[in-house]
Structures are given as structure tokens and as C-alpha cells.
């Protein structure tokens, strides 16, 4: 099981693994926003939590379609399905590897990029905290979507359409927690709701994704 995690992390940082792609996308998006909405610091400060959350969400979407597709293409998924590891565990490890290579770097980068959008000091802290709590749900929901679409030609597009609506609750509570934190309001309860979504995803989605993959392997 841990072998799978370490292999996925190794593959991600090798050539063509896509590590850093999400981060670069996030950076460019954040840099582009002031060009689009104008340099007014007050306006940027108001929209910063929402923009950074939407950016993190789209960035984590970028590498989702590779999660199972590459393993399906080269037969690794067949071999893993017959190996003495449960498919649910494979899904959980894949989601963990995706989060470690996407969600965690985004969480660490977001406070720095918050400076570009004039986000206040406490706001940057709350933003990082809300991303830390919310991004695992993005990886888990993404694993479910990737499991549903594995084996489809050009499955990446349908994957986005499937997954983005499912991201809405995490986005609402994550961005709201960051916004409240930035404005000095009580952000704790909202953050707890975001955490509840993450935990629910962790409890249910590995089973759903594993079932979808077994069907797709037939």
C-alpha cells in the first residue's frame, strides 16, 4: 500500500509526471486576476479568498485525468486488481498521492499568492487553513470521477463536467471560511463544515471509486 504511494510520488516528480503543473497554473491564474479586474487594492482584497479558492480548485482538476488513466493504459490497473491489495486502498493511496503533489503545494503557495491579491495577514492564515482542510476532499472527489471515467477515450472533459459540480459544497464552505477569517469574523464553524465534507468524502468515496473501477475493468 505504501509502496503504491511512494511509487506515485516518484512518478509525479520524474519527467512528464506533471508535478508543478498545477502550481504553475495556480500562479498564472492569480497573476492574471489583477489584470482582469483592475489594480484597486480594496476590490482585490474583497475577492481574494474566492479567487484563490476557485484557482486551487481548477488547478487540482488539471492532473485528475491521469490518476487512473495511465495505469489503465499500461495494464498496471489490471495487475493491481489481481494483487493482494484492496481496490479501495489503491484508490485511497492514489487520492493521497494526488493531494500530496497537488493540494498540499497549493495550500503552501496560496498565502504567498494572497499577497498578490492584497489579502490581509490573518486572511492568509485562514486561507491556508481552509485549503488544508478542504483540498483533501477535492482529491477524493476527483478520484471518484477519475474512477468513473477510466477507460474512456478523452475522458478528461467528461471528468471535469462530473467533478466540478461535486466540488461546490467544498468551495462554498472553504471560501466562506477564508473570507470570514480575512474580515475578522468567526470562521471556525464554517471551517468545521468544510472538514465534515472532507471526512464524509474520505469515508464514502474510496468505496464508490473502487466499485466504479471494477466495473470499468470488465
Amino acid at each position, binding site marked *: 500500500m*505504501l*509502496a*503504491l504511494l511512494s*511509487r506515485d510520488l*516518484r*512518478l509525479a516528480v*520524474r*519527467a*512528464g*509526471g506533471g508535478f508543478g503543473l498545477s502550481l504553475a497554473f495556480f500562479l498564472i491564474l492569480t497573476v492574471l486576476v489583477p489584470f482582469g479586474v483592475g489594480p484597486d487594492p480594496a476590490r482585490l482584497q474583497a475577492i481574494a479568498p474566492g479567487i484563490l479558492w476557485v484557482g486551487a480548485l481548477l488547478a487540482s482538476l488539471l492532473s485528475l485525468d491521469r490518476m487512473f488513466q495511465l495505469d489503465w*493504459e*499500461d*495494464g*498496471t490497473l*489490471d*495487475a*493491481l*486488481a*489481481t*494483487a*493482494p*491489495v484492496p481496490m479501495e486502498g489503491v484508490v485511497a493511496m492514489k487520492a493521497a498521492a494526488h493531494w500530496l503533489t497537488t493540494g498540499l503545494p497549493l495550500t503552501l503557495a496560496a498565502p504567498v499568492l494572497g499577497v498578490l491579491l492584497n489579502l490581509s495577514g490573518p486572511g492568509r492564515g485562514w486561507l491556508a487553513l481552509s485549503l488544508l482542510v478542504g483540498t483533501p476532499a477535492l482529491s477524493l472527489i476527483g478520484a471518484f470521477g477519475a474512477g468513473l471515467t477510466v*477507460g474512456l477515450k478523452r475522458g478528461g472533459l467528461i471528468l471535469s463536467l462530473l467533478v466540478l459540480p461535486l466540488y461546490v459544497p467544498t468551495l462554498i464552505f472553504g471560501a466562506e471560511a477564508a473570507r470570514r477569517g480575512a474580515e475578522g469574523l468567526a470562521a471556525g464553524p464554517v471551517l468545521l463544515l468544510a472538514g465534515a465534507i472532507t471526512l464524509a468524502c474520505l469515508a464514502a468515496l474510496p468505496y464508490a471509486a473502487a466499485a466504479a473501477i471494477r466495473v470499468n*475493468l*470488465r
Partner: protein
Amino acid sequence: MGTAAHSEPGLAVAGLAVARGGLTILRGLDFRVGPGEALILTGPNGVGKTSLLRTLAGLQPPAAGTVSPAPDRLAYAGHADAVKATLTVAENLAFWARVHGGAGGEVGDALAALGLGDLAARPAQSLSAGQRRRLGLARLLLTGRRLWLLDEPTVSLDAASVALFAALLGRHLAGGGAAALASHIDLGLTGAARLDLSPFRALAPLPAVAGAGGFDEAFL
């Protein structure tokens, strides 16, 4: 797993029907492959050899009938080699050894058994098709399982490598292992039974154009 393997009765199939894309394509299969025995599945392209092997491996459920033992006693090697291009040969095998609960010490043996020792540090993407195939077959040795399901194991292998693999398979059988394989070439396995799947077809042969396209679509 090693202790259980000795009492293993081998592969037993009863009344098996195999489906592909929702259509039953083979039915009425009954056969046994005991320890030390090999069964070579033959038949024209599209008859269902791969689907049968995938059903035996537990990757798809049987449309009817039973397969024993459970899929966790079987090692399946399909058309794809389950090789990661950016990992080295040794890293690829070390991963499969760990997945199957090994410590990693058997990787060297597996490399040597398939003549890959000199290539251990090479990235898998620089291998030739035949070398890649041998790397895929080396995974079988790391599973620690006695029942091998092999789908066209000799594709892209040169004559020397085919002989190497035939000898390996012979040692596996002599050691009490068993194998069911789909193969179009003669591996020179003494005493291997052959099973032609054509009589077990569940469907009338379809017109070539529509039939081939439809089946491939369903399978992909």
C-alpha cells in the same frame, strides 16, 4: 501464501460462460489444470481467449459457472506489461515485489531469470518491445503465486527469449506450478494439454465487418 500453495488442487473450471461487452461469447467450459500441468488455449482471433483469461483472473465476473481457486491465488499477465516508463527496470520490479508482500530480495532473482540483469538501472522507456515484455513477465515471479494466467506471453520476444521463457515456464511447472496460456506459437512444453475454444462459442459467427467492429468497441 507459500504454505497454502502446496495443498493447492490447481485450477478448476465448471460450467463456465464468459461474457464480453454484455454478450456471452463462450459457454459450457469445463476443465482442470492440476499442479505441474499447463493448458494452452487456442482458437481464432476474437474467439474469447483474452476474455476467458480475464474471467479466470477475476477481472470480470463469469456469466455462469464457477472458477476455483479464488482470484487471489492466480497471477495474470495480459497484453499490457504493467511497466512504468519513467521508472527503472529494478524500480518497476521492486514496486511489484512490495505490492505482493515481498521484501525486495527476490527482484535480483527475477531479473536474472529473464536475462534483465544488465538492464536493471535502465529507465523502462528505453527498453525494446521484447525487453519490456520480459520485464512484464518477470512480475509473475514476484507474485509468489503458483497458477499463472498468460495472455500471449511470447509477443515481441525473439527466439532466444522465447526459449528462455519456455525454460522458465518449464521450471515453474516442474516445481508444482500450473499455467493456462493463450499462445499461437509452440513453446515446446511436454505434456501440455491443448484446448480449442472454437466449439465453445456461444454465438453464431457474425459478419466479419460489423462483428469485429462491434466486439472491439465493446471490449475497449
